[in-house]
């Protein structure tokens, strides 16, 4: 701290006129009695400046700390995503859906994570890596084709897009020629707490809850076993319950291929025409559906078809032809769809997907009538592959 030398020129009470060493004439307040002619060292001038500088520096530090705290807060975990295959693991996500950390919840989970760098990557990217690895390591097989996702993302707004993550898993499966099924559950804070209390992952707890509601009586630990999970998830009533309760159930490509493309796609398959990439088919179907929405309106009675399927005991799923997401939005929606009675999958329009699942009304149950479903009756009918087939007049 620099002190300024000064000489006292004049005095009035404790206010002194001084000449400082830099040639400034100024007044200072001194509490000690000084005489004219005395050389003094001023601390006030420089000190005051220093004090201001210190205050500014302190303020800067505080602002920096606040920003750092805020950014830290942003980088802190606000959501958990559990992935249960046979390996079970948990991803910790920040508010931007970036993975802040991952940990294996069993030995296989740790094996799956071994050597993977996940921090800072997007949740979808990490999930794709994990599924790919699970396929390579034969955790995901034809016998064990299920991936159970569970999210507790109460601290995240908007909630983690589970349907998108389910798509990712499915696409990775398709890439490896595998039919991977996904069941995804979004837990509330209360359910998350309950899951922890029971020692289950969010995915396991979501499945257990759905199974319970579907009328299955099983111990909590059952959902921890991958074979048991496959058995539970294979049951139609559980699938129906999963759709009804938590919204995201995605079946693999093989199931969807047979069922979701409806009569038009089926006809091609049956005729031995090589299968087109699903995306392209989906797009074409969608385009055709849109074009023929008007002319095909009322061409078929999908309600009868659905009812027939239900009568035959085949679970009815609705989904997106391109995304293949199946959900339990409403029975009304379901009633708009055609369905291949030989397959356990179905699909519905793109917009329905957006209005369903996580994006839908959480309290809506099967049997309740959806306004959206009502509004979209004609569109849905137009989208129907059955209608398309008939409309084409083949």
């Amino acid at each position, binding site marked *: 701290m620099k002190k300024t030398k000064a000489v006292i020129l*004049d005095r009035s009470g404790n206010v002194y006129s001084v000449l400082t060493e830099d040639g400034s004439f*100024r007044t200072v307040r001194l509490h000690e009695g000084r005489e004219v*002619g005395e050389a003094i060292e001023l601390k006030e001038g420089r000190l005051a400046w220093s004090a201001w500088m210190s205050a500014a520096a302190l303020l800067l530090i505080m602002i920096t700390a606040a920003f750092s705290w805020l950014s830290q807060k942003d980088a802190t975990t606000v959501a958990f995503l559990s992935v249960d295959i046979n390996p079970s693991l948990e991803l910790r996500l920040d508010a931007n859906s970036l993975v802040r950390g991952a940990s294996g919840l069993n030995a296989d989970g740790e094996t799956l994570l071994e050597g993977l760098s996940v921090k800072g990557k997007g949740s979808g990217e990490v999930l794709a890596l994990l599924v790919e690895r699970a396929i390579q390591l034969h955790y995901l097989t034809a016998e064990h084709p299920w991936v159970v996702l569970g999210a507790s993302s109460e601290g995240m707004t908007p909630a983690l897009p589970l349907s998108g993550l389910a798509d990712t898993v499915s696409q990775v499966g398709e890439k490896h020629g595998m039919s991977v099924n996904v069941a995804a559950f979004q837990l509330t804070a209360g359910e998350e707490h309950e899951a922890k209390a029971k020692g289950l992952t969010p995915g396991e707890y979501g499945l257990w809850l759905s199974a319970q509601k579907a009328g299955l009586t099983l111990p909590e630990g059952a959902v921890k076993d991958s074979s048991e999970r496959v058995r539970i998830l294979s049951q139609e009533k559980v699938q129906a319950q999963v759709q009804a309760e938590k919204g995201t159930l995605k079946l693999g490509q093989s199931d969807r291929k047979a069922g979701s493309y409806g009569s038009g796609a089926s006809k091609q398959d049956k005729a031995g025409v090589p299968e087109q990439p699903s995306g392209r088919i989906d797009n074409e179907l969608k385009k055709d559906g849109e074009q023929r929405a008007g002319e095909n309106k009322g061409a078929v009675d999908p309600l009868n078809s659905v009812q027939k399927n239900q009568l035959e005991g085949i679970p009815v799923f609705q989904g997106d032809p391109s995304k293949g997401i199946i959900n339990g939005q409403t029975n009304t929606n379901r009633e708009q769809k055609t369905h291949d009675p030989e397959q356990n999958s179905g699909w519905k329009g793109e917009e329905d997907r957006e209005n369903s699942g996580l994006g839908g009304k959480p309290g809506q149950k099967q049997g309740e009538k959806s306004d959206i479903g009502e509004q979209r009756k004609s569109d849905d009918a137009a989208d129907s592959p059955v209608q398309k087939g008939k409309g084409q007049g083949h």
Partner: protein
Amino acid sequence: MGFPFGEDGEMPDWEEPRFWEELMANRQVREDCLTASQPFVLHVAGQVCGRHLEWGRDEELSEAIIAFNVALDHFELGKGVPFLAYARLLIKRRLIDYFRRQERHQALPLEAPEVALAAELQVSVADFCDREQNRERASEIQEFALELKQYALSFSDLIEVSPKHRDTRESLQRAALQLAGDPILWAQVEQKGKIPMQALANLTGLHLKVLERGRKYLLAVALLIAHKHHYIYLREYVLPQERRAAR
């Protein structure tokens, strides 16, 4: 001269250690120094006597130059005391003693306390304590205040107009140094009581507005610098940074 004295060819740089080495080793340097310092000795002796003195006519000047020579012998560099202040004190004390010896002390123009101290002729630099330096400074301040008054200025005025910005202040200090160092311009100041602004602007290269705005400060600083034999302490506070002696 055997030693490169100050830039203006007058007194040497008293803060230069080499000068003091030369002074002790070379008699010619001392002679040159005494010659160069005659104006200072004349000024101080004149102050003490309260009248104009002349070399060869007034014995007081002989006493004063002896005192100055003693100051050269006893001065210690680096003690925080300006040599000229020390020399001035010794000159004053020697002259007071001289007056006593001449039994003319009743005619002394000095204050009583100063006279009382005059008995101590040999004052070491260490003895030149803060109290005495304060008294010296106070004396300079008092005279400076009186001089300012002649130009209708006061310390309050200077506080009010003192440039807050360092660059402006230093520019004005340099301008004041040039003004005080220019005999023609300075003579105009002393005669008319005003600064020849246009001429100074031409000399310094500073904008006329800058000089006008800092007129009072400029004049005060120029007064301190111009009277270099008088404001030994105060001028050190207003000299441009590059011209200041280490204090």
